[in-house]
């Protein structure tokens, strides 16, 4: 093999010598740093760059498979990261809203995460990761930055269960914010709440905001409940049928504030005495 190589070199010795001497000359030239050589280097780099650009058009099939695999991995990783960032952004928005509520509100609040939820039954509830130990008591109102959620139904030392507006047992004294018309909010099933005890003659229009009224001994006044979706008269009845679209989206509810306000005991006692006096109707 070496002999054959030697024979080839010997056969083309003139060319081999020329190549060696030219290489030596060019190497010597390369050690210089003159204007001319800088210009040549610049031209060479441009030419090589241009040629690389031209040849880059030709795909390297051997590398494509590996490149695809790398890109797929990167895609999965980036998708995961985007998903987590999106989640963080939404959480951030929610928490900002809640923080704003906490700062503006006149009451003390205890934030809690919804760790359990039912929405398909007639007595729907949510479970929160705050309980007696956190100062939570039965009947304390539950709110978010969007509005009223419900009230606390049961308490354990570390957890509590809230009765939400989509629960057939809940009643909330409410009023139409624009016209100050009072009524009682309750849920009869379906996707909206209903406002009762509103006479036909009273001014209620779709789009009106509905808030908690001053008549409740549980819910502080002025908390948004929802918006009037429909108000219609029923033939043969003295009252209107009013549908309320709740302002809280219970399907996506993830955090809530417990309003750390105990009902006024004097008022509760008085209300009870009045009810006892009136007796069953």
């Amino acid at each position, binding site marked *: 093999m070496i002999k054959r190589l030697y024979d080839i070199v010997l056969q083309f*010795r*003139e060319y081999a*010598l*020329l190549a060696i*001497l*030219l290489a*030596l*000359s*060019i*190497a*010597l*030239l*390369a*050690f*210089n740093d*003159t*204007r*001319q*050589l*800088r*210009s*040549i280097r610049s*031209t060479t780099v441009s030419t090589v760059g241009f040629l690389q650009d031209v040849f880059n058009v030709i795909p390297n099939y051997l590398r494509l498979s590996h490149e695809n695999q790398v890109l797929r991995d990167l895609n999965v990783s980036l998708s995961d990261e985007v998903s987590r960032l999106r989640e963080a952004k939404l959480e951030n928005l929610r928490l900002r809203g809640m923080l704003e509520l906490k700062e503006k509100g006149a009451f003390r609040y205890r934030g809690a995460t919804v760790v359990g939820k039912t929405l398909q039954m007639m007595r729907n509830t949510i479970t929160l990761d705050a309980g007696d130990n956190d100062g939570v008591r039965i009947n304390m109102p539950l709110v978010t930055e969007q509005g009223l959620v419900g009230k606390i139904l049961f308490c354990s030392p570390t957890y509590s269960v809230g009765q939400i507006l989509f629960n057939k047992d809940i009643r909330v004294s409410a009023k139409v914010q624009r016209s100050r018309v009072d009524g009682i909010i309750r849920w009869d099933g379906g996707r909206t709440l209903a406002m009762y005890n509103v006479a036909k003659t009273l001014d209620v229009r779709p789009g009106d905001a509905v808030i908690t009224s001053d008549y409740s001994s549980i819910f502080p006044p002025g908390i948004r409940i929802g918006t009037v979706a429909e108000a219609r008269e029923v033939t043969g009845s003295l009252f209107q049928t009013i549908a309320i679209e709740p302002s809280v989206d219970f399907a996506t509810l993830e955090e809530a504030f417990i309003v750390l306000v105990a009902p006024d005991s004097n008022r509760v006692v008085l209300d009870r005495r009045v009810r006892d006096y009136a007796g069953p109707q």
Partner: protein
Amino acid sequence: MRRTLADIALSVLVLLVHTVLGKFLVVGEISPDLPLIWVVYLAIRRGQIAGTIAGFLFGLVLDALGASEGMIGLAALSKTLAGFIAGYFYNENKTLQTLGGYQFIVILAIASAVHNLCYFLIFLQGTTMSLGTVAFRYGLPTTLYTTAVGLIPMFGFSRSSQVHG
């Protein structure tokens, strides 16, 4: 061996003449390339390998003497090429006829043209001169001048070959 020593001695002499007396031969910006004539002579007389090596060594010495204005290796590169090309025309049995005939001038012209093209193309890089300007302002005149000076040894060899029959 004696022949080689004689060639080396003559090479030194040519270099001395070129460096000391070369300035008296300058016309405008153009001067004849005496070492190149000597390299072409060596290539025709001793063969392609000798011509190539002589070109490289002459070029290297001229570079060291500052002929390429700091571009060490430029004269070596162009004279190596010229020596190699001139060596193509080496014919062991007809060296004197080639040296004493028009062939010498043709070979010298070709070698000089290649040499000057290579030399000036690199030497004038970074200037705004076009290839045409380089060729017509420096390459061609230097080639013609060198070839014209090459007529002197050609006539010398012509007479020498006639004397020796």
